[in-house]
């Protein structure tokens, strides 16, 4: 494994995160580029009372909530796409056992945007008139207020700057300096740039020479990056465009078993708590043949014919 620069072992970086109450923005979206290896390691190390933020909730947030690791979760909605719902999250909302602050994809990102720009807030019309806003004004009153713009006298929601202590995103590659390459959409760019410490798990650490030959692929330059952890298939069973596909078998099974906490617990015990690291997780849940089959076709960016 290529080390040096900001490249560090995943376990060591996770060990740095406080055992209780750490504030983390996650980078996944439903079933793609979810930082699974990182989140599994958070669970293995028994982190508790996490304050989580996410653009669109997905596989990893459901895992963390199901594992009982989350105290508060602010997000713009979420699902497993056609594979199902975030039942561990949703049940927490239904039972009132989880402190959830529902935003939308834009409104939570306006908070990240303000954080990334170093400005105190961003005014926006979005959420005026909704129950989402009514709930936020109650639950998240330190972060959201309704005011008149001094220029046009109209009502706006002021979304307060958010700079989470950590952001954790998964990307196909980065160099040892922390220049991060992402192919496809970059819904997690604002949250990555907003965080105080950005941790990036990558399938592969590449040379800085590769970066210099493809600077237009760098979505997040090294200035933002706190640590780079090389974890091959680090987003499995979710997809990484141009690297590997999601595992439809695993996700559809998960989208059923997450309806019951007891079934979820068995799965977590078997695959996360029962494995010592991501390689064991991969071997147990996927196996070498499945992993090979999921590798992306270089033209299509996913495993042509895999699903």
């Amino acid at each position, binding site marked *: 494994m290529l080390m040096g620069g900001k490249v560090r072992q995943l376990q060591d970086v996770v060990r740095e995160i406080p055992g209780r109450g750490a504030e983390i923005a996650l980078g996944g979206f439903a079933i793609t580029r979810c930082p699974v290896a990182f989140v599994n390691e958070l669970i293995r190390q028994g982190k508790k009372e996490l304050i989580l933020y996410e653009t669109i909730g*997905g596989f990893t947030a459901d895992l963390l909530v199901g594992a009982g690791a989350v105290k508060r979760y602010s997000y713009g909605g979420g699902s497993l796409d056609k594979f199902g719902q975030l039942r561990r999250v949703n049940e927490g*909302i239904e039972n009132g056992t989880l402190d959830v602050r*529902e935003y939308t*994809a834009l409104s939570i990102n306006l908070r990240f945007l303000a954080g990334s720009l170093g400005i105190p807030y961003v005014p926006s019309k979005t959420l005026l008139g909704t129950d989402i806003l009514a709930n936020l004004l109650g639950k998240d009153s330190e972060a959201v207020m309704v005011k008149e713009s001094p220029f046009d006298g109209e009502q706006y929601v002021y979304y307060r700057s958010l700079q989470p202590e950590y952001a954790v995103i998964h990307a196909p590659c980065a160099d040892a300096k922390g220049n991060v390459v992402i192919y496809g*959409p970059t*819904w997690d760019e604002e949250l990555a740039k907003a965080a105080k410490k950005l941790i990036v798990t990558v399938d592969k650490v590449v040379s800085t020479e590769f970066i210099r030959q493809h600077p237009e692929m760098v979505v997040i330059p090294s200035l933002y990056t706190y640590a780079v952890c090389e974890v091959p298939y680090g987003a499995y069973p979710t*997809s990484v465009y141009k690297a590997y596909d999601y595992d439809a078998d695993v996700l559809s099974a998960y989208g059923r078993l997450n309806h019951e906490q007891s079934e979820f617990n068995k799965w977590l015990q078997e695959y996360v708590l029962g494995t010592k690291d991501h390689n064991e997780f991969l071997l147990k849940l996927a196996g070498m043949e499945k992993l090979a089959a999921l590798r992306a076709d270089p033209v299509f960016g996913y495993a042509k014919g895999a699903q």
Partner: protein
Amino acid sequence: MAAVTYTTNELMAVTAARALRDGQNVVVGLGLPQVAALLAKRTHAPNLNIIYEIGVANAEAVDPGVGIADPRLWHRSEYFTSSIGALGSILQKGLVDVGFLGALQIDCFGNLNSTQVKLADGSIRHFTGSGGAADIATFARNIFVIMKHEKRKITASLDYLTSVGLLAGGDSRSKAGLPMCLEVKIITNLCVFGIKRGQNVLEVQSLHPGVAQEDVLANTGFAVTFAADLQTTGIPTEVETTLLRTRIDPRGLFIK
């Protein structure tokens, strides 16, 4: 020439497609909205720009996906961007003509619930939440919804207001400080609702062939009004059904 045969889903997709105009920018998700947009693009609207809120513009997928997070839907895109790129600099700037939204419930003002429903025992059942839906409802000039026509879904009162339509009708939307909404078009398996001008409340503007006003009344949770010039929804042409079946959804995942 024999009459064209079509499924209800095909009729809904064709109706939505025909409501799109060339050169418009539309935000869609997986399913019939995507099918409708692709059909419009292959017929009368070749310059339609199709955007997924995840940050993808004008993809040309060749394989069906499980949602907008599936890289299958990103194939041969013209542009990739961030959350703020898609929902800030495109949507909030006002560049989106039509936003297609899904919903658990809709009321007579076109307000939408995609968050949670109250069950008979008083408990709640939580679903997906907004994603970009509430943002799209705020800033898209036209909101299109394709949904099943059921009393519990097309309802007198929402369990949760996720996305604004016309709020409480009249000028309540603009009074709340929201940008103008030109149209809320609800395409169901029975009819098409649109805005009754002046009052800013939904009315049935066309009934699908073979559907009676009573069918709509019986399946709607709010007091339905019918437009003065109530139409019959136009049926698909053979060109449209052929495109749907051979090019756009050959596996019949959405149009069956």
